[in-house]
């Protein structure tokens, strides 16, 4: 596919260029911090941030240690995401099979799509409180659309011959959806779950910044009001790492599913 546009750097060269890039990034950061160009309080050095992250593993801040905050965040994420997948995937499959359902839901869905998940925060807090329920609604509204859309597309673009073969053999709606559409669109569904998980995790962070009394987002807000940039940065790292772990895990699942299917 890729044709050599510009001379392709060798592996060694590419690696050293990458290292040089990272070194430049860190050097600029350290220089800005140490020179006092930016006050140290607002831009701590990388090692100060690393130390703070390490300390937060044991020392509680904003009511809990970092692992406890992370556990609370993850609990919310897992509940909201599971709910989004449990509603979105079946609904998407049904919409892919029943035209009338598609015609009914698509206009409503298209209208709601433009309201960003974060805009649900006030209603979420009003309806379900700020503990577990409210944030779950926000994660749900972030993770739901990709789950639904991918299941729907997967079901719509199933090879017609499978469906025709099933119908010729007299398969009913229920069995067609469960035994033809679901397996055939499984790769698309898993891809949707991965995108949904990413958006859900992002929405969770937003929700916790605004309404929550625990979780990493809450810890960051507390760090911000105490002018502890280190804590805020430690929170960013923690969020980034967990987000990455979720993404890698689901990518593995996706690759596994595709391999089982003989795709790619």
């Amino acid at each position, binding site marked *: 596919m890729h*044709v050599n546009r510009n001379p392709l750097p060798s592996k060694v060269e590419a690696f050293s260029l990458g290292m040089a890039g*990272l070194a430049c*990034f860190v050097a600029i950061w350290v220089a800005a911090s140490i020179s006092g160009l930016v006050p140290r309080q*607002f831009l701590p050095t990388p090692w100060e941030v690393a130390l703070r992250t390490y300390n937060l593993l044991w020392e509680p801040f904003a009511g809990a240690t970092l692992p406890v905050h992370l556990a609370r965040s993850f609990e919310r994420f897992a509940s909201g995401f599971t709910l989004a997948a449990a509603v979105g995937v079946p609904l998407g499959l049904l919409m892919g099979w029943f035209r009338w359902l598609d015609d009914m839901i698509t206009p409503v869905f298209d209208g709601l799509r433009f309201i960003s998940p*974060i805009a649900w925060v*006030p209603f979420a807090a009003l309806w379900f409180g700020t503990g577990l329920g409210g944030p779950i609604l926000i994660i749900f509204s972030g993770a739901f659309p990709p789950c639904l859309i991918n299941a729907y597309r997967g079901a719509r673009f199933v090879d017609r011959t499978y469906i025709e073969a099933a119908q010729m053999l007299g398969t009913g709606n229920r069995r067609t959806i469960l035994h033809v559409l679901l397996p055939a669109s499984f790769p698309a569904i898993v891809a949707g779950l991965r995108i949904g998980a990413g958006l859900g995790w992002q929405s969770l962070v937003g929700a916790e910044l605004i309404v929550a009394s625990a979780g990493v987002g809450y810890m960051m807000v507390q760090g911000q009001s105490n002018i502890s940039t280190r804590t805020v940065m430690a929170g960013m790292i923690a969020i980034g790492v967990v987000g990455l772990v979720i993404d890698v895990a689901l990518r593995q699942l996706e690759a596994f599913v595709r391999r089982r299917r003989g795709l790619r």
Partner: protein
Amino acid sequence: MHISRRLAIGTATIVTLLVLWPVLTLVTGTIDTGRFPSPLQFWQSLRQIVTVGYADGTLWQHAMQSLKLVVMGFVVAVSFGIPLGLLMGWSRRAEAFINPIFLLIRPIPPLAWIPLAILWLGLGDAAKIMVIFFAAFVPAVINTFTGIRTIEPHIIEAARMLGTGRSRLVVEVLVPGAAPMIFTGLRLSLQASWTTLVAAELVGAITGLGRVLNVAQTDIYPAMVLVGMVAVGVLGWATTRVLAGIESRLMPWLSVRA
């Protein structure tokens, strides 16, 4: 035939919902108006914010403030993101140099920059522009990069064979070739801009639609919450339409769906 049936069912659904809304809130009381407003309350709140104002401004002032910040953040992010994507797409060396930094920063969700932006820049416009920048920058870079890398090699080879110079190659071959992907990136960037702006304004702002949502939440004023949400949705939709309009104007050979 099918399209008209589709339209009929869609319209019927929306009309049904619009009829159910007053019935469930005002007539039967199935939905508690303390939790979700009736159409009447919605209308009154809309009138209130348009004429008298709410949360220190009229709807127009809040909407214009939010729109201004989204456009500014989006334009800044895109004017850095597209050239960077072009550079990384064109030069493997630049890609090797920049990509690791990118991989380091990318897993941090845009919204997680909000506390840092407030620490650094306070609650004013600058902090919001910084957060929108981080949100809108990444899709612009990635899609431009992918767009360049997926251009048919023959096209570039043909241009080169004909002796096209560097700058002409970029302007007349690479940018148009990557344009569909670039616009896909821009659409994602725009969406991300709105999401992050609303979140940033909810965390702290003086005016803006997020501020309306925030004040309405503390006042436990569901009708105003709904007004704020609808306003955010309408502006998001309108800006997406404008972008799609620009896209189809620039690339009339592609049919664009918003």
